[in-house]
């Protein structure tokens, strides 16, 4: 049973939540937020779609398999640590770059940020893998039960004919 109001609201709220999650991720270094919280918000944005419509809608909206998101996240986090190693420091040492940016501003980038991006993607991947798998397993079971019931009914009917 899909609630029309919830489904419509989810469609509007989901992009907002995603933007908010990225906002959380970026500001995390200086104010409450970060990859973990941001990742959870992003995951919830997709779960909202899954609950309001069906898991297939959430998957279509994500476009890629959540398990791949998870893997890419872990890879980014681990790879960000290698930069420190390549610079002759210990694994995962933060390396900072100060880049000139638009309009005379400066953009401070660091491997730490990429690590946080890795955490963000891993959390999104983990949460969606768990939740979508559970939702789909539940629905499959429901379908199977319904099919079994229908089959029983059909066989009973055929018996009554013979």
């Amino acid at each position, binding site marked *: 049973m899909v609630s029309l109001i919830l489904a419509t609201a989810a469609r509007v709220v989901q992009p907002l939540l995603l933007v908010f999650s990225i906002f959380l991720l970026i500001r*995390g*270094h*200086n*104010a*409450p*937020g*970060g*990859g*973990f*919280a941001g990742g*959870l*918000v992003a*995951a*919830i944005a997709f*779960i909202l779609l899954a*609950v309001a419509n069906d898991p297939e809608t959430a998957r279509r909206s994500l476009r890629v398999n959540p*398990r791949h998101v*998870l*893997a890419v*996240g*872990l890879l980014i*986090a*681990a790879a960000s*640590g290698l930069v420190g190693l390549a610079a002759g420091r210990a*694994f*995962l040492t*933060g390396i*900072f770059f100060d880049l000139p940016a638009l309009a005379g501003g400066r953009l*401070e980038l*660091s491997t*730490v940020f990429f*690590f*946080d991006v*890795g*955490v963000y993607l*891993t*959390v999104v*991947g*983990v*949460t969606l*893998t*768990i*939740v979508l*798998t*559970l*939702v789909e*397993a*539940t629905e499959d*079971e*429901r379908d199977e039960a319904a099919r079994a019931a229908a089959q029983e009914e059909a066989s009973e009917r055929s018996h009554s004919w013979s």
Partner: protein
Amino acid sequence: MSLMATILAALAAGAVAPLLVGRAPRAAGWLLAVVPALIAAWLAAQVPRIVDGGPIRETVAWIPALGIEASFRLDGLALLFALLISGIGALVVVYAGGYLAGDRRLGRFSLILFAFMASMLGVVLADNLLLLYAAWALTGITSYLLIGFDSHSPTARRAALQALITTFAGELALLAGIVMLGQAGGSYELSVLVERGDRIAADPLFGPMTVLLVAGALTKSAQFPFHYWLPNAMEAPTPVSAYLHSATMVKAGVYLLARISPIFAGTDLWLWLVGGAGAITMVLAAFLAIHQTDLKRLLAYSTVSALGIMTFLLGIGSEHAVNAAMTFLLGHALYKGTLFLVAGILDHETGMRDASRLSGLRTAMPITMVAAALAAFSMAALPPFFGFIGKELVYEAAVHAEPLPPALLTALVLAPSVVFVVVAAVAGIRPFAGPRVDLPKAPHDPGPAMLVGPVLLGALGVIGGLVPAAFATGLVSPAAASITGTPSDVELALWHGLTPMLLLSGLTLLLGIAAFWSLAPIAALARRADVGGRIGPERGYEGAMDGIRAAADALARYVQNGLLRRYLLMILVAGTALVGFAFVGRGPLPSLRLPLDVQAHELAVVGIVIIAALTAITTRSRLSAIAALGIVGYGVALIYLLFGAPDLAMTQILIETLTVILFVLVLYHLPRFAILSSRAARVRDAVIAGTAGVLMGGLTLAAFSVQNDVPLSEFFGATSYPDAHGRNIVNVILVDFRAMDTLGEITVLALAALGIYALLRLRPRRT
């Protein structure tokens, strides 16, 4: 860098092996063999330098933080072994290309074989004992993969596991021994330790150290009482049996004994331990060999016996004995490698390896016959083969082993020597003599890939016998010299004059031929007397395995009975008990300074949380329980917020939200709500939960009252922005100061997600 380069080259060859086999399956064996052949050639080129100059040593920083260096050293002993490993390795790689031709697993096989070769080179080239141990362990693991290569066969898997567990038990002993040795000698470098023999001998742990190190060597070289794993390891493809289980890996134990004998040899403990194990093994394995009909098992038992002779000689430890051990080792590697390769050819081309039935193959497989005969004559110690020289030296060592009784030792050596004549005749001569028999396949000589190895190794056995001086000065003398520490001048010759040794050789041959002609009754007798299946050490191994399995089974049935309630109970009980023990055992509790300036709204939040928790455990509706739990969570989040931890609060709220969603999803799977547990069980659960809660509360209060000199928060507050360019301390800790922990945590999360996916989605569908 050149010594380490040999190891890296073998690893690199292994890495490209699967690709090469995929592209050019027919030529892959020949192309891959170039690498070990080049290693062997390079090593051979070092011979003059080692003979004249002395060892080559090189070091590479390995774990600089702990001051551990990867040091490699090439002396006479290492050179002999490394040449066998790379030289026979090259031939075996070519052979395997023919043996597994058309098998799509050849790539994987070559990969593991090269990994083994690299590990084995590591064992013999390492100067650092810890490096040696690491390489030693890797030979065990690669051997496991190779024995169990036919992974669909239960017997192969069982044999692989048996070899792994037996040698691994020895490995643990070896590691303990290495640590003791390193502590006693103040270094882990073998070249340093052999100089400090007196200091090590004065160590109070000298005895246990000896026993542990020797135990590691004995398991690896399949010495009594650990001999059972080697014949079972014949489940491996034949190239593996020839390479690992006769020519190289099983000699690693002998290598280690030779390596440490400058430190340990000469004590009574060493003599009885090493010499005793070797003596028992050489006689026992010879007895067990005599009634085997499977070609490979026959050769395996004779290998165990030969390893026993080498161990026995190193146990005696005299200069004669060491010279004999090295000469015999070289001869054995040549002829036994050949015989295994021939056994593989027979199996491959006739489809059978029952030694009692194979016969009359001389016209069908003439080249194979020549190789087999060369090896068999060397094994039977006929002049002018290299095996003859080795056997003469063994007898000489036994005769001159004062103060031990020479007559007894000579008799002990005579027994396996006679059996070797019989085994040589059964495995190398009889399959080709006699009348033709019906075979599963029409036999003919195999292609050149499978012939080059046995022919070359067999021929080396004759060349070594005819020009023994080349082997003596180049290989055997330097090897013996590195063991005894004194310049050794082994003179190998076929003719020593009319000595007792020559008489003994003649006697051995006569007894061996006589035993071969009356083999049937002797074998029947031996089979009847073989009670090892009932009371041998292998029964002990099986008993121990069964016991471990039964104990693990019982424990798992109790602790992990499939009910989540039980798991939770176990975690809580164990956690509470351990933490409580540490908490209370630390002495008097610190005085608790309760912060009494509690605000009214804080009390209200706490009250709500408590009421919600009580509701959650008393309600009879699942949905209300979930909602109540949600209130508990949000209440806690509110407390975080009130005490100035917005990050924690935010994460808590998000997690709470997700938890409720997950609960709702799981709700569907649950049966109708009912109270299933008894009243007593619920009281027990309440007591445990209450204890755990009180303990956690106490811990929190105690932690609050412990004052560090400088609170951690101050450190992070002070360094967070200057060092890590971030103002949010919590996040800076997560992603920078403690990034390694976070990486670990997200890895665990990822594994949990994949686990749930696998459990729900990858299980076999019910039909």
